[in-house]
């Protein structure tokens, strides 16, 4: 058959083939359900709140998704986030050089990610274990650097508005809207990394590394370098999340970011990324965080469960989404 006909035929299959088919269906269904049944859900305030609450976890999830696609985990993103926020905070206040603060807050997390990659590649320890260890080590580093103190400022440093400023243009027009510039950063990163994943040579190597590292290595790809790069990316994005956090809340403490790694993995899985690697989508990760954030708002608005038991709902969502994703994957 001609290539044109072949291409037409393949386009028809594509919808169910897409890794985000499952999460997209689930999210649209949940969104519709919430709009219909929950009072005040379809308000600017609620919707902007959902997006805002998703940006920090979302940023981390982008990096985690990329790394999971390559077949590895990073459980140390929490302390990396905290370290970035401390560095950024300490160096941007009292007339400090804002660009230097930004640079440091991205460089050090990159190095921390690099160290993660180095340990995994050199020693062959599974990344789950290795980053579990570095999680504690980096936590200790954060403790040392911050001297155990919470850090907070009330200064209005210009760079904060760049990363997580209030979009006054919208806010002044629409009551209750809390759209922030961090949403742009998140969507930008999602698009960037999704593009890198599916449209670049490096992305192809990532798919291969996660799907079948032996086969990929046999084809001449430097699997170790691919994984190393993904670890660095995960670190940098966690750093960016820390920057976003501090830009809005101007406060950071040692516990900042703890638990983010599991939130991110949950969102990635809900968004269609396979735990073993090689299949998934960065856009799916965004869908995953939005779904979780949506559910949380819905739950509070309906006063269904006390907000501190929200974790149970996330658990149910993970299982449900995994089942749906699996079913759709098998159907195609």
């Amino acid at each position: 058959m001609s290539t044109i006909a072949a291409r037409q035929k393949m386009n028809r299959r594509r919808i169910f083939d897409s890794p985000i088919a499952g999460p997209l269906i689930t999210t649209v269904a949940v969104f519709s359900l919430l709009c219909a049944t929950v009072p005040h859900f379809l308000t600017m305030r609620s919707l902007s709140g959902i997006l805002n609450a998703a940006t920090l976890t979302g940023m981390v999830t982008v990096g985690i998704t990329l790394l999971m696609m390559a077949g590895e985990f990073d459980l140390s993103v929490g302390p990396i986030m905290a370290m970035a926020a401390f560095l950024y905070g300490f160096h941007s206040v009292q007339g400090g050089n804002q660009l230097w603060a930004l640079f440091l807050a991205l460089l050090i997390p990159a190095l921390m990610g690099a160290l993660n990659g180095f340990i995994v590649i050199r020693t062959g320890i599974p990344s789950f274990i290795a980053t579990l260890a570095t999680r504690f080590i980096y936590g200790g580093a954060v403790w040392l650097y911050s001297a155990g103190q919470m850090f907070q400022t009330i200064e209005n440093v210009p760079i904060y508005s760049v990363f997580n400023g209030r979009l006054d243009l919208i806010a002044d027009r629409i009551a209750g809207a809390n759209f922030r510039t961090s949403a742009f950063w998140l969507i930008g990163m999602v698009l960037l990394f999704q593009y890198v994943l599916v449209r670049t040579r490096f992305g192809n190597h990532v798919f291969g590394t996660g799907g079948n590292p032996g086969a990929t290595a046999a084809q001449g790809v430097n699997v170790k370098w691919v994984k190393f790069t993904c670890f660095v990316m995960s670190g940098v994005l966690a750093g960016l999340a820390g920057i976003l956090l501090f830009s809005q809340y101007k406060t950071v403490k040692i516990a900042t970011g703890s638990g983010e790694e599991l939130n991110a993995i949950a969102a990635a899985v809900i968004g269609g990324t396979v735990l073993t690697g090689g299949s998934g989508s960065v856009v799916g990760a965004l869908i995953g965080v939005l779904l979780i954030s949506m559910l949380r708002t819905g739950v509070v608005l309906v006063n269904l469960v006390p907000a501190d038991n929200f974790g149970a709902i996330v658990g149910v969502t993970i299982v449900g989404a995994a089942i749906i994703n699996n079913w759709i994957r098998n159907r195609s």
Partner: protein
Amino acid sequence: MKPVRYLVLLILAGTLALAGCGTPAETPTAAAPTPVPAEPTVSPAEPTAVPVEPTEAPAAEPGPAEKPLNLIFVQHALCAWDSFWCTVENGINQAAADMKANVTILGPDQFDLEKVAQLIDQAVAANPDGIGLTVTDPDLFREPIQRALDAGIPVVAYNAGSGPVKDNIAYMTYLGQDEYQGGYQGGQRLGAGGGTQGVCINHQVGHAGLDARCNGFLDAMQELGIPAEVLAISNDPAESQTIISDYTTANPDTDVFLTLGPNGANPFYAFLDAAGLKPGDVKHGTFDLSPEIAARIKDGTTLFGIDQQPFLQGYGAVQILTMVKRYGITPALPVTSTGPGFIDASNVDFVADPSRALNLVFVQHALCAWDSFWCVVQKGIETAAAEMNANVTVLGPDQFDLEKVAQLIDQGVAANPDGIALTVTDPDLFREPIQGALDAGIPVVAYNAGSGPVKDNIAYMTYLGQDEYAGGYQGGQRLAAGGGTQGVCINHQVGHAGLDARCNGFLDAMEELGIPAEVLAISNDPAESQTIISDYTTANPDTDVFLTLGPNGANPFYAFLDAAGLKPGDVKHGTFDLSPEIIARIKDGTTLFGIDQQPFLQGYGAVQILVLKLRYGISPAMPVTPTGPGFVDKGNVEIVEKLAGTYR
């Protein structure tokens, strides 16, 4: 691969280098607490001892300790014509010397309340740094005291008064004996070894204070399951003796007796002698002291005399005023008890020794070196040690390790200090070592951690710390004072006993005021928490009273306020703890108050209690001596801000 190897080594070296020299660039905003530069911890094996040298002059740093304060005290009686007041004035003068204050004592030539009111006006006109006075007649004194408050002069009441709430005058606190507590604790002590029947001998039924003493006694007896009642006698000693004698004939099982002062004790002793009763036949305790009572304590007839500790009334009044003016620290409760102070066979012979040199050992479960909260406690300890000329050594582990702390307590006891203060972080673990100190006759005080000698089941003197429940309760009262529709307590760590207690206090206060309220649980993630708060208020739009339990709750709350476009005054907000952000919000009126557990006072107070005990034989009045809640609001936020990180 080679170039990659070099790159990786470089990265590793760089990371290690950065981890090693992790000092922040420069100290951040003045309002922010100063992060201590990262210092490597000392070698794990040794505990860290921080000796605090007593200094002649106040500590070298510039600050509040330097400036002497001018205080004026107005009493309804003077030492010159009522010897009770000599003890009070001794306390005043001693405190003035210790804390570098100039105190002028004013009083009438005879009992004349109008004259006292005029003296109060004169005091206000002199514009002192603080005023202490006896609120003998609240209605008569209300106006002059209000003038002092309007002029911004802090006011403390001592010896007479019922507290700012009951007296309906907004002075800081009332220092005096808690009459009910005296009777209650006295009854507990008398009935401790068992008893058949008790009687409270009241020589002035109708006198509110004396009646309160008997009420406390009766409640204690009831709790112990011992039947008891009040016996009224008169001012006539012969008459009184007969009444007592007849009563015991009619009630031969009576074996627990409480008298309310020398006017009751005297006829009682006469009765005992006439009946031929020996020490130990019956159990007797009394209020107040006299030479006869002291003698009977020594020979064992009387178990104790209860002292309202007039020395402490004077001393404490000066101290509270200096605390407020210098460190912005407010007394925790509306009523600060100076008594009951129990004088028994162990301390009846105590002779005050104001210049006695003291070596004190403090044992903490954390140290300033690795937990900056404790730097403020340390500051309190050092300040008190300097002012009261005591030698204090602070011991603590290198990291949170309770077994290590228990060992340090043993070491502290072995050094045979004059007094010990410690954090009762784990009463079961520390019970033995503390008992070792008590058995050796060393007075022990607990601070920052503990629940009091009764709840902890360890017989130390008192526990100094924040009363979490009271903080939430008083916070709720303050917030809803002007009215409110619906309240919420935002808890960022449900399950933490202290935080839960704070919310419980708040909810109870709201309930009393008839305002519906509940607890909202948030998380550690600020974005998540902000959304939860926002969604909650969307679902409950009438909510206008908010209490947060610390910066972890306040920070997302402020983000929510800004996002929702709410202005100061739109809702009422109070929070626990302080932070630069919270301080800024108190100043601009968004937040009504921050509640401080006043760690400075924990350290300071622990030293002070030991010093008072060892030099003047004065015991703390209550099993729990609250240092917080200390409310920081627009009135005192300026001074607190200046001292953040050091004194606060």
